[in-house]
């Protein structure tokens, strides 16, 4: 029986091959490269499912494929490419390849059927992105993760700027690249710091840097720290450095400004990259290095607080937006805030659970938005829509399922995952004020989320059509409805993988918290990367309200469900009428603040303008010193040749003279060596 481990590189390489084929096949490919992409991602999905099954059977592994640099002397670090297949990465592989495949199928309807041009470039970009994201998921060391992290950023730039002939997309692509690159700068410094401190950047194994950090804090090992800093302080700093990249990539405050602009890209790209996978890369990285992060309570508190704050912050901005995809973009920022809240407050399983459910329902919502956009001939303004539910039934019902999941309504997937996040934050936060504050912000974001979600649903699908486009929408085909249906089903049932509250409340039911068992290495996994190991290390203790675990669970669930239904009810009252008004105008000046995103974009531009001197200095160094050295080397060669070639004067007597002198010198040299004199 061939083991799945031999095929893990193929999971990454299949989409890469489709990238190459689309790049060189150009216009000659069937459907301009779509079929190649669909085949490649379907192949990756099949292999990922097989890997998932083999991990279920206890065959998790870590393997190094290629050593591309070995250290010398005292610094014997090796830089490698390898794969780490454990429960977390196997789960993520399935999520990424499934969403990628569905997006490829959807692209047939969104791009091919709409007659877009330059499609081979689009499918090449999607293929490269899928390959990079899958490579990031299986990465077994921080440097390899960083390299693929940058690659997905590059693919995001290429795909956002797909319609580069218009003014908006290239500018949005540059913004996305620059803002995430700013965070990645800190990430890179963090990677170097990890290497310098631990001598290794491996995620797993007894010699991995989380294990070494744990040993160092127990006094069993020594690691290098700069200037004699205490180890715990230094680990906090390193964790915060890597967090810079995470905040950029997962669009948390303050580096969230790129994600709404990234909606300039085609909608399938938004669904794949800016909903389900690339922005998940940051959260996945924290989960991957969780054994390192739990060792520093300060970093955990910062992660939780930033997450909770972002959840509320972005949710408020989503309330006033006019365009369908903009609401979903702010929703994405907000939901990733929830995941960071979970990670920061010790809810590892809750974060991964929400990552999974969010990937499905957010991709569903984006693809549904894409379907609406096709129907509305690429007009995204919700105030021009209305009454689409009769004309686009499949889209409506799946979009509704996704919205119910997003708002956190029982029994859809989002309810279970969001509820678990809030529960973990509550029980760990009763002793920690920062975590509690983050919990409160996350809780306040729940009704806001439900409100903006259902405002979006009612404005788009309910009521009377408000424009001729809405009265007579373009129809969509199976290649749009198929992925929507698959994701719609998943949005409903995915909650079933981790029905923790049910297990806690009903005493006779045991063992249905599958995700907990999966991430706890109950069915096999890599030593040291299990949720109980993290729970041992984290600085939190669980406190319960009202006398016990079960009342706390019930109270938490009731509060969050009640708030969600309250938000939904408000949206129902305001917007589920035949001809809704723009009620957000009643907010007055607050609306302007929210609509302009709290002026964060202007603030960042102001910062950039006022730090020109720093950039200027770096530019001078680059052009003067570095370029100067390179140009200087070449000018030495040019000048010396300019002088030396004047020996060739063309006059025969000169040549004869030089010959004579040369002969004499040669004789003298040979004579001295050979002892002729």
């Amino acid at each position, binding site marked *: 029986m061939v083991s799945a481990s031999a095929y893990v590189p193929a999971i990454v390489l299949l989409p890469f091959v489709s990238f190459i084929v689309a790049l060189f096949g150009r216009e000659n490919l069937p459907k301009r490269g779509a079929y190649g992409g669909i085949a490649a991602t379907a192949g990756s999905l099949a292999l990922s499912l097989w890997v998932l099954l083999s991990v279920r059977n206890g065959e998790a592994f870590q393997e190094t494929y290629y050593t591309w640099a070995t250290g010398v002397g005292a610094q014997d670090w090796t830089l490698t490419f390898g794969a780490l297949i454990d429960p977390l990465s196997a789960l993520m592989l399935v999520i990424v390849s499934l969403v990628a495949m569905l997006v490829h199928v959807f692209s047939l309807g969104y791009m091919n059927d709409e007659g877009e041009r330059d499609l081979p470039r689009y499918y090449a970009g999607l293929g490269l992105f899928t390959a990079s994201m899958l490579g990031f998921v299986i990465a077994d060391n921080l440097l390899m993760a960083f390299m693929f992290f940058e690659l997905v950023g590059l693919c995001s730039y290429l795909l956002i700027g797909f319609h580069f002939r218009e003014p908006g997309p290239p500018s949005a692509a540059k913004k996305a690249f620059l803002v995430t690159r700013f965070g990645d700068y800190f990430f890179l410094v963090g990677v170097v710091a990890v290497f310098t401190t631990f001598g290794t950047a491996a995620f797993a194994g007894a010699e991995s840097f989380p294990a070494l950090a744990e040993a160092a804090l127990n006094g069993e090992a020594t690691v290098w720290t700069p200037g004699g800093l205490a180890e715990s302080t230094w680990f906090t700093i390193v964790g915060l450095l890597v967090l810079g990249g995470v905040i950029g990539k997962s669009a948390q405050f303050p580096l969230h400004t790129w994600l709404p602009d990234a909606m300039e890209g085609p909608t399938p790209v938004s669904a794949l990259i800016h909903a389900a996978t690339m922005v998940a890369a940051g959260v996945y990285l924290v989960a991957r290095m969780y054994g390192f992060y739990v060792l520093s309570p300060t970093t955990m508190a910062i992660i939780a607080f930033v997450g909770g704050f972002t959840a509320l912050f972005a949710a408020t901005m989503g309330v006033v937006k006019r365009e369908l995809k903009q609401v979903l973009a702010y929703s994405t920022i907000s939901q990733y805030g929830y995941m960071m809240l979970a990670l920061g407050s010790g809810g590892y399983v809750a974060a991964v659970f929400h990552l999974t459910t969010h990937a499905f329902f957010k991709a569903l919502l984006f693809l549904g938005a894409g379907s609406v956009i096709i129907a509305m001939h690429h007009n995204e303004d919700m105030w021009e829509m209305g009454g689409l539910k009769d004309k686009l039934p499949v889209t409506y019902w799946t979009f509704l399922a996704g919205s119910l999941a997003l708002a956190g309504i029982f029994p859809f997937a989002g309810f279970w995952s969001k509820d678990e996040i809030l529960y973990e934050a509550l029980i760990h936060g009763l002793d920690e004020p920062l975590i509690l504050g983050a919990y409160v912000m996350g809780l306040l974001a729940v009704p806001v989320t439900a409100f903006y979600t259902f405002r979006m649903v009612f404005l788009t699908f309910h009521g009377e059509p408000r424009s001729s486009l809405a009265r007579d929408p373009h129809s969509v085909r199976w290649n749009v409805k198929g992925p929507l249906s698959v994701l719609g089903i998943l949005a409903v049932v995915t909650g079933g993988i981790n029905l923790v509250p049910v297990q806690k409340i009903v005493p006779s039911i045991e063992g249905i918290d599958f995700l907990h068992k999966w991430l706890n290495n109950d069915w096999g996994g890599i030593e040291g990367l299990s949720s109980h190991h993290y729970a041992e290390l984290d600085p939190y203790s669980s406190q319960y309200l009202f006398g016990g675990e079960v009342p706390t669970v019930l109270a938490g669930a009731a509060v969050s469900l009640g708030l969600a239904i309250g938000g939904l009810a408000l949206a129902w009252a305001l917007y589920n009428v035949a001809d809704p008004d723009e009620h957000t105008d009643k907010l007055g000046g607050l609306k302007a603040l929210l609509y302009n995103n709290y002026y964060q974009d202007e603030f960042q531009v102001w910062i950039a303008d006022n730090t020109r001197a720093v950039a200027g200095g770096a530019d001078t160094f680059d052009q003067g010193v570095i370029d100067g050295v390179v140009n200087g080397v070449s000018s030495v060669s040019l000048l010396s040749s300019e002088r030396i070639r004047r020996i060739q004067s063309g006059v025969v007597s000169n040549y004869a*003279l030089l010959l*004579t*002198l040369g002969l*004499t010198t040669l004789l*003298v040299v040979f*004579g001295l060596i050979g002892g*002729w*004199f």
Partner: protein
Amino acid sequence: MTDTDGSDRASAALAVTALFAVLTTVVVGAAGSFPDPTGFPADASIVHNIGYALFDIGLGEIPAEGFLAAFLIIALALDVALDAAIYLAKREDEGSIVSALTDGGRDIVAGDVAEREPADEGGDR
């Protein structure tokens, strides 16, 4: 024209003297190490023996290597040099030299060649 001017002659003289000095030093240093010259037998005819060597006939008493191949190649080389010299000397606007010789000199005395300018009009400058 005159020879090169003073400074060039000085440097040439210097180079040449240096070379002569090096060669002479080497020779003088090796002066004593040659054995006595083996001359040729008094009654042997050197010319005959050179002839035997050229044709690879081993009849002479004086030892020599065979030079038959070199002899033939030198003959070839001399032939080639002759042709090269003729070719280099040929003028472009003239017919082949052979034709000038077959008319009994009529061209030179009273034909095209006589009507042309004498070739040595330029003289020594």
